[in-house]
């Protein structure tokens, strides 16, 4: 699903990512690890098309609308409610049976009762759960997650564990994390960035 050869990204004089090779197979689960500044986030942004590589080859065999991306920012508007944010994404991604699907995800991530509250009033953990709802809303075939457990309490982390297990068969995963052990049951390959 993703194939990279000698992938490199430079920001002016500094090197964001140095010559990376990897392959993510359909239904694969690739965990990316490495210290801060090693280029994990850069690699993920390259794979979803938010940045262009400076050199090397990158082939992503999935169209933009089938990618689900969770970054450092939740990518939701603080002045809108959870329902309004997901409705906007649902329209842009042309999600069939949008309202039912949004309701189902909000319930699954325990945000149903807060659905009419403005997202600006959410805690960090609630924001991360809403960001996960946004990521999974359109049933992506390629799921790219950057530190998905960040900000989640034990209950939230368990919800994410369950979601990953449910989606494991139908999607390919590319996950950057400082807690690779947590993802061991799913992991098919690891990529360690220096």
């Amino acid at each position, binding site marked *: 699903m993703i194939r990279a050869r000698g992938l490199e990204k430079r920001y002016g004089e500094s090197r964001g990512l140095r010559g990376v090779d990897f392959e993510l197979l359909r239904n694969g689960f690739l965990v990316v690890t490495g210290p801060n500044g090693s280029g994990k986030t850069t690699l993920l942004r390259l794979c*979803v*098309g938010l940045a*262009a590589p400076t050199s090397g080859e990158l082939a992503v065999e999935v*169209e933009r609308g089938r990618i689900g*991306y969770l*970054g450092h920012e939740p*990518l939701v508007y603080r002045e809108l409610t959870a329902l309004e944010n997901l409705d906007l994404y649902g329209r842009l*991604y042309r999600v069939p049976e949008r309202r039912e699907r949004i309701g189902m995800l909000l319930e699954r991530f325990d945000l149903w009762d807060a659905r009419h509250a403005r997202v600006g009033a959410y805690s960090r953990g609630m924001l991360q759960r809403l960001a996960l709802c946004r990521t999974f809303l359109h049933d992506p075939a390629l799921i790219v997650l950057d530190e998905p457990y960040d900000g989640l309490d034990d209950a939230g982390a368990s919800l994410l564990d369950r979601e990953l297990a449910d989606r494991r068969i139908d999607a390919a995963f590319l996950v950057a994390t400082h807690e690779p052990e947590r993802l061991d049951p799913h992991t098919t390959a690891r990529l360690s960035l220096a």
Partner: protein
Amino acid sequence: MIRYLADVRALARKDLTLELRARDTLPAMLLFVLSTLVVFHFVLPAHASSLAAKGLLWVAIVFTALLGLSRAFAAEREQGMIDGLVLAPSDRSAIWVGKATAMLAFLVLAEIVALPAFALFFSGIDARTVGAVALADVGLCSVGTLLAAMATASRARELLLPLLFLPLAIPIVVGGVGASVSAHAAKYAGLLALYDVVFALLAWASFEYVVTE
């Protein structure tokens, strides 16, 4: 095409809802345009010609638009939202059309207050001035929204936007003033319409390259 328009509608509605909740662009535009007209009222000598007053109206409109445009991508910049919009499978130019439509709505609302205020402080407003303002609004919002998106990516965005926008607004001021006061108003209105079409097409076609790395 229907899907494209649905995307534009969803994006424009989002911007209008955000403004309705946050109220940080339109009130500032209203206050600015009224204050500017009051200042101009006292700056202009008594019995000054109505031609000079019309010129000042255009200065007020251009700078009010600039003020609104400086906030156009504030939510996207502060919350990293542009990534979320760019990742969506919809045509990226729909982001520009939606944003430009919302900016146009804010500018028109500001002018609904500003034009009667101008009539009160200076001279009456005729239909051809209103028509010229309407034509100019389209150009200001088309070009301005593209430039606001470009400036958003820069650290010096507060400096960059006026530096890019004001030179490109000169033809609008020339056309607007001409259409308001000249004996050949139709010719200047034609210039404004041509500007609108050419720059709207350029902005529509180039927006994708502005928001992607």
